[in-house]
Structures are given as structure tokens and as C-alpha cells.
């Protein structure tokens, strides 16, 4: 089933806030091999100019993928989740995600196109804390065709 091109331009309602916690930051940092003290040690983070420990640069994917799920699981979108492969990812940080942030995500569908038997869907998640924009996460997801 092809991906529904009518979804281009669609904006989903804001998600429930995701509470960024220092334990999750530590767990994520360790998983990506980081021992940077700005992730692990509150005093070091404060000395570096942050309010509290900050999240690694790709931590926002954890929230963005939860936002993407709104589209993936929308039956009208026509996306077979078992055929989804990650094609591209980008993060633009206005400031680092910080322990104590309550992050709200708004998912936008920026593009749907066909390429070589596959469908490519580009999403953009705008993450904010109390109305302040903190990060833009864009993803291109490839939905592999039946014969590919």
C-alpha cells in the first residue's frame, strides 16, 4: 500500500510533556560511549554554564521517535512499520536539553515521495520547553517497497 501523500503539511497536536531526567541522560550517555562530565556530573555541568546535566546531542531522538509514532501508527497514513528503515537524521539545537526540562513535541509531515520502489517520508519535530524552542529534529524514513 503506498504512503498517503495527503499527509504532507500535516501537523499533529503537541505531545504530553517528556520529563528529561539525569538518570536517563546518564544511561543514554553511557550507551553511546560518552563520559563527558556535562552529562554525568551536575557540578561540572554548572561550571560549564548549564543549569544541570545536559543530554547528549542525539538524545532528542528518544522524544522525536515517540512523536513519529503518531504518524507511523496512523492507519490512514498507510505505513507498514515493519518495512521502515532510517534514511537520514538531523538535529538543530537552540540549546541543549537539560535535566528538569519538560519537553513538548509537535510533529510535522514535511514530505512524502516515491523513489526506486520505496516511499520516503520526511518528518520534522519541533521540541519546546515552556514555549521556548529548544531543538528541531528532522528524519527521513524509508519504507521499503514489497519487492525491495
Amino acid at each position, binding site marked *: 500500500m503506498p504512503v498517503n501523500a495527503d499527509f504532507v503539511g500535516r501537523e499533529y497536536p503537541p505531545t504530553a510533556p517528556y520529563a528529561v531526567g539525569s538518570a*536517563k541522560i546518564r*544511561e*543514554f550517555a*553511557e*550507551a*553511546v*560511549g*560518552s563520559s*563527558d*562530565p*556535562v*552529562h554525568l556530573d551536575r557540578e561540572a555541568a554548572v561550571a*560549564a554554564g*548549564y543549569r544541570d546535566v*545536559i543530554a*547528549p*546531542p*542525539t538524545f532528542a*531522538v*528518544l522524544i522525536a*521517535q*515517540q512523536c513519529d509514532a503518531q504518524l507511523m501508527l496512523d492507519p490512514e497514513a498507510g505505513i507498514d512499520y*515493519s518495512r521502515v*528503515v*532510517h*534514511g*537520514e*537524521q*538531523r*538535529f*538543530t*539545537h537552540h540549546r*541543549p536539553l537539560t535535566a528538569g526540562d519538560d519537553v513538548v513535541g509537535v510533529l510535522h509531515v514535511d514530505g512524502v515521495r516515491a523513489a526506486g520502489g520505496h516511499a520516503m517520508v520526511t518528518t520534522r519535530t519541533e521540541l519546546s520547553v515552556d514555549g521556548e524552542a529548544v531543538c528541531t529534529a*528532522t528524519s527521513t524514513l524509508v519504507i521499503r517497497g514489497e519487492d525491495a
Partner: protein
Amino acid sequence: MAPRTLASVTVGDELPTRTVHIERASLVQYAGASLDRNPIHWDERFARAVGLPDVIAHGMFTMGAGATVVGDWAGDAGRVVDYGTRFTKPVVVPHDSGADVVFAGVVKKVDADAGLVTVELRATCGDDKVLGRALAVVHLR
């Protein structure tokens, strides 16, 4: 650890290379940390059933490990203000041997007025280039 200074950076500077060894346990750890529990990243039987050669690493695991390389070079991961990549080839992670991804990087651009340094990151697994057009922008003073 003080962040790297803008004045010390020149176009063409190379980042220290780093080899990251990935085992199935690394992927289970990342799956838990990131909440991406797709079984293609830890269940060999499932991965093969959907046409993959074996378990593959999360693209975001490789991207995240690359962010660590850039953040360590900058001296503060919070200085990485923009970071994007294409996932060009999967990193296959066999049960017995695991896989090695080699990261390298080079400074492509220095915008002294804005304090922004663009680093191009290279990530290879065997002969495969696993990240494409991987660019990180680092804010230095």
C-alpha cells in the same frame, strides 16, 4: 576539561580517530537507553526473517557514537549545535565477532565571526562507509 578554543582550530584539522567495538550487548544497552526496541537490533532470527543478513546496529547508535567523538573533540558535548547524517549502509553485528566502526573527522569550515566550526565525520565498518554526509556544527569561543 575546558572547551576547545576557536582560535586553535584551522580548516583541515583532523579529529583523533576512534574505533568503537560493537557487540550485541551494546545494542541491547542502546535499545534500553533510547527506547528503540526494534528486534532487528538484537534478535538474529527476527532480523533474518525480514531479509537482513544478521542483526544490525541502530543507525542512531552509530550517529550517537559519532556525536561522542565530536563532543569529546570540542571539550563539551553541549557545543554541538547542529548534527546531521545519512545512513548509507547498515552495520552488521555478528554474534561471535561483533563489529568495529572506525570514526575519523576533519574540520571543513571555520566561521570565526559566528564562532561556528563545521566538522565532517567519517564512519566506516570494514570497507563500508556507514554514515554519509555526516556534518556537525560546533560552537566555540
